């Protein structure tokens, strides 16, 4: 906590998971309320890092249950009581949580998806097969993703396996609404906000404000624009002014992640 993170120098000693965590952490700020779902070691690490550096007053709701919890470190599960240790409030789920979420008092959600498409639509349901009821691959299912995607949330996706199979032109099944067919399709259904950022093992993408197509924002050191495009199942928008490198973690961020937040290395699981 007393680390001088603000003036800490950049480091080359980081893993891809750690880079993704630092990029995500920067998206969450003081005065905001954010939550994560299950199987979410990366978002949990990002929230914890944000709170220990630039955003001590970020309000983190752990896994929709534990408000302002203080786990000693990331535990072995993000859907179990050790995570929401020392919470200031347990949100009763059926009314408290879904009231506050639907009414947008909780407004940022960081989550993963089996497939994402060029308009930020997410698929955690089924891939391939003859029809919905005979899929090639049955994924876990939408859980709360379908809800949070339609309930005016700002959505932050992470993906540690950037490939033409996970970033596809069109998802096989929309389990979470992104910008649908792009343009104002989302707005026309009365759905606010939507996907903001996609952080992968290769690059960071956002969405064009008008077309809502996915746009390359930065490439991680060691990757090139061409490599990222090749690893993507659709044509990424490339800003004319060029694509910068993703800012690398600082020494202080890495120390916090390794020594304080996640000494057990759950981020690598």
């Amino acid at each position: 906590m007393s680390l001088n993170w603000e003036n800490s120098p950049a480091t080359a000693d980081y893993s891809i998971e750690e880079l993704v965590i630092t990029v995500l952490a920067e998206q969450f700020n003081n005065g905001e309320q954010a939550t994560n779902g299950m199987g979410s070691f990366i978002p949990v690490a990002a929230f914890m890092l944000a709170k220990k550096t630039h955003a001590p007053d970020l309000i983190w709701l752990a896994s929709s249950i534990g408000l302002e919890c203080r786990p000693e470190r990331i535990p072995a599960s993000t859907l179990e009581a050790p995570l929401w240790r020392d919470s200031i409030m347990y949100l009763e789920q059926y009314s408290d949580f879904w009231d506050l979420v639907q009414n947008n008092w909780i407004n940022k959600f960081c989550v993963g998806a089996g497939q994402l498409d060029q308009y930020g639509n997410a698929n955690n349901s089924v891939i391939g097969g003859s029809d919905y009821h005979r899929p090639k691959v049955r994924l876990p299912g939408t859980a709360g993703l379908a809800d949070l995607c339609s309930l005016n949330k700002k959505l932050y996706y992470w993906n540690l396996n950037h490939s033409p199979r996970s970033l596809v032109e069109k998802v096989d099944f929309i389990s979470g609404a992104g910008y649908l067919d792009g343009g104002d399709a989302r707005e026309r259904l009365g759905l606010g906000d939507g996907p903001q950022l996609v952080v992968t093992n290769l690059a960071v993408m956002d969405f064009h404000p008008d077309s809502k197509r996915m746009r390359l924002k930065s490439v991680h050191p060691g990757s090139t624009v061409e490599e990222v495009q090749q690893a993507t199942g659709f044509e990424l928008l490339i800003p004319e002014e060029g694509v910068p490198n993703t800012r690398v973690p600082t020494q202080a961020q890495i120390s916090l992640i390794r020594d304080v937040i996640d000494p057990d290395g759950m981020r690598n699981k």
Partner: protein
Amino acid sequence: MQEKITSLEEAIAPIRDGDVVALQIMATYAAPMTLVRELIRQKKKDLGLVVLIGGIAVDWLANAGVINRLIGAAVTMEQFGLCQQYRKAVEQGRIRVEEISESVLNARLGAGARGLPFLTTRGAIGTDLMKENSDNMKMLDDPFGGMPVMACRALVPDFALIHAHRADRYGNIQYEPGARWPDLAIMPKAAKHVVVTAEEIVDSEVLRRHPERTILPGFKVDAVVEVPNGAHPTSFFPNYGYDTQFHREWTSVSRNDEKATEFIDRYIRSPASQSEYLELIGGEERLEYLKEWEGKR
């Protein structure tokens, strides 16, 4: 008052093949696993299972052929990975999935609990879930001129299966402070019949000390069975954590049908009682270990 205490056998016997059974479970969290095993032991079949986030129980029920459809938001064992037996059964068409999101499931069960034909949400609008579930999810105009909403049809399971911290013999059910997922809050209220296992049966006077911890009145409960460690291998805070080793033992065989069935024969079909099961999974020593869960205060 009507006595509700019975045996595992008698508690589960009234469930008929084809019934819709709602199960308390959140990945690795707080499921009535002894009741799940009893479903398998009694060779129930063609059940429709309702879960919010199903875990190992769904995998077992899939392997044993107990369920042929699932209504739920997700099925996963979180850090232990996908439920492979379930996944295969779906891919092969042996289990039909009616996938709905959490707010839709809450609305469907909430309507069932309240005796209303439907409740509404703004979640899941624009998704393909709506297309695949058009019988149960319909867009509805606001009669006051505001935004349209999605109406979610009432779901009334035949049975709800629940595990709790304590109960009295009249079926009043208590749960300790902590996370209360919607499956616990709403499934038993929506279901026609409720079967509960409890870590302990206590005198009603014990419940009266903390009436705010009682989550179900006796008149809403059909059967209560005292089953210490009745949520193993899922967690049951603050009593015990989930069993990592046991989950891993399952996932090490769950991709292989034959080995998976052997596992279920060994741990579910063979032991004649809960105590035999607990001996098999490591007995008193293992149970003591699970009490010292990570981060316990």
